[in-house]
């Protein structure tokens, strides 16, 4: 297996009582709740954790993009990636991902990734996402055209990376007469593109297509859904006439390891529950603006929501039970991860070893335990 240490960079000093006076930790949460001195400490801690992950033997260290939220203070993940390039030597650096529809000139994304790829001499992995629904509120981009903009931006970026320039690009949303980026990417034909996803069938079909074969990563989902979506991807690959390799499938999950199950659950509880309930949870009209999902998918989602009734606070125990988070002793964590790997033949595991308000001290211990007690057992 290939192991990734992934960071969201949540703003841990958030005053949770204040947070709950507002609809969400996104879009409308007043930024007066952000203290720059504490924020600077957060960046320092988190970058140190990413650098340390390379020393512990992780193959990939990874960051991602979110806007106007305490959930993740990385609106410009490439800035962090540039810093990591200077402080590491061999780990791959993944930016999974950039939210393509949210920009008005995707050439900027092509250029920045190409720069990072040169600066790192080919250590960059990219991820292409659409952004969370909340970000269509905070950027003003029309969610009605989210899918179209994503497709076009993808095509434009790959063209910029691969077609000898100058070329031109003619789209509905993006029109560029001179596509001719300097620098070109270091890697040939271009850095890998990973597709983190909540499992939408349109995305699976697109990512698995033979001309792409993009690694597909299911995020924040229960054991059952991870298995289902990854098998849908495998099935789709078969329909295209090939067998998906383990490298092409993976999943992302918060993981916490301690000596015993009991200790692990006790130490992880606050971090897990703040992640899901305080940082991530938002009202549905923020999360799912019209057009973000296709109309048929949205109709189904609304019916499921109606059946579920009012949303309550998720507990760590429930999340661990469903396998959305993996928490326990080294043996427990090894067993659960091995089972998920064997059920899906997934070759990529994206670990989130810092989550929610989890402290520096516990994060460090968690990383060390995972690297020494879990990773070696799952390597092959």
């Amino acid at each position, binding site marked *: 297996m290939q192991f990734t240490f992934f960071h969201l960079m949540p703003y841990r000093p958030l005053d949770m009582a204040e947070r709950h006076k507002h609809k969400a930790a996104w879009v409308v949460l007043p930024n007066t709740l952000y203290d720059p001195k504490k924020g600077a400490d957060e960046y320092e801690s988190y970058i140190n954790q990413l650098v340390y992950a390379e020393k512990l033997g992780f193959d990939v260290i990874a960051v991602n993009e979110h806007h106007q939220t305490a959930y993740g203070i990385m609106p410009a993940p490439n800035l962090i990636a540039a810093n990591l390039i200077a402080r590491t030597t061999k780990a791959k650096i993944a930016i999974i991902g950039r939210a393509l529809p949210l920009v008005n000139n995707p050439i900027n994304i092509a250029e920045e990734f190409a720069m990072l790829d040169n600066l790192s001499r080919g250590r960059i992995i990219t991820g292409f996402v659409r952004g969370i629904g909340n970000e269509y509120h905070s950027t003003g981009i029309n969610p009605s055209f989210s899918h179209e903009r994503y497709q076009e931006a993808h095509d434009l970026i790959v063209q910029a990376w691969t077609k000898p320039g100058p070329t031109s690009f003619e789209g509905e949303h993006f029109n560029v007469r001179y596509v001719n980026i300097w620098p070109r990417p270091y890697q040939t034909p271009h850095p890998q593109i990973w597709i983190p996803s909540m499992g939408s069938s349109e995305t699976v079909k697109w990512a698995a297509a033979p001309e792409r074969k993009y690694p597909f990563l299911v995020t924040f989902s229960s054991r059952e859904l991870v298995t289902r979506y990854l098998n849908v991807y495998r099935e789709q690959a078969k329909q295209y006439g090939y067998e998906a390799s383990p490298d092409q499938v993976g999943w992302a999950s918060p993981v916490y390891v301690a000596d015993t199950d009991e200790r692990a659950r006790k130490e992880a509880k606050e971090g897990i529950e703040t992640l899901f309930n305080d940082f991530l949870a938002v009202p549905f009209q*923020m999360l799912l603006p019209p057009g973000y999902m296709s109309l048929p998918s949205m109709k189904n989602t609304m019916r499921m929501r109606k059946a579920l009734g009012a949303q309550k606070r998720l507990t760590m125990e429930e999340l661990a039970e469903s396998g959305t988070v993996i928490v326990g002793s080294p043996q427990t964590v090894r067993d659960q991860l091995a089972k998920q790997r064997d059920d899906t033949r997934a070759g990529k595991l994206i670990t989130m070893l810092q989550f929610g308000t989890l402290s520096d001290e516990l994060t460090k211990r968690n990383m060390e335990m995972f690297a020494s007690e879990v990773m070696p057992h799952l390597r092959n």
Partner: protein
Amino acid sequence: MPGTETKHKVRDVNVRMLRGGSGPPLLFLHGANGLPVWLPVFELLSKQFEVFVPEHPGFGTSDNPGWMRNIGDLAMYYLDFLDEFGPHEVHVVGQSLGGWAAAEAAVRNCSRIKTLSLLGPAGIRIKGMPSGDNFIWSPEEAVRNLYHNQAIPDQILAVQPTDDQADILLTNRFATAKFGWEPRWYNPSLERWLHRITVPTLIVWGKEDKLFPSAYAARWGERIPGSRVGIVPECGHVPAVEKPEIAAKEIIRLYAGTR
């Protein structure tokens, strides 16, 4: 007498349409929440007019053509629609999003329009006076914020929509976002060309409108030569629903002035 439901075809697009009454033709363009039923205001208007209320393409059970991408497309669709009528024959009324579409059509071509009535129309922006963000309102806020008299939302919210009704609400929300998400509820070019509306025009606005502040009414009035502005007290964003007698009376008065 309730209106009858029909299908109406313009070129290759089929829409659901309610119609009723007799007299000169009146085209009513509905707002973002769509066209659920034959409203009391249609009943009042149908005593003077033959009322046509099409459900916009993309809304409810009407066709959703792929080319319908912005408010200009909706306006051009209604210019095609109006081509079936004679010169200066049709009284056009538009509520909110429908008022925006009507104004966009009228600046392009007034030749089929007899009078124009805009009820709390979207379409222009006054800096420093932003619209309410109805895309982020909760479902309850989205109903409550449209009305001044809270007995109306009380009644609406007391009824749980069926799955089919919920699907239609969602369809309408999708259609609306295409037109109104960005720029939020306006076309930067429209205000400049409002002088091209040369038919008798009425602007009606609920004084307590929480979506588009009633101060917008005066700006519309200034930009459309000879237009009349009516502010309806104790009324929210939807005068046609909240004050149907006043809305109908104003529209009929405008018509009477042209006879």
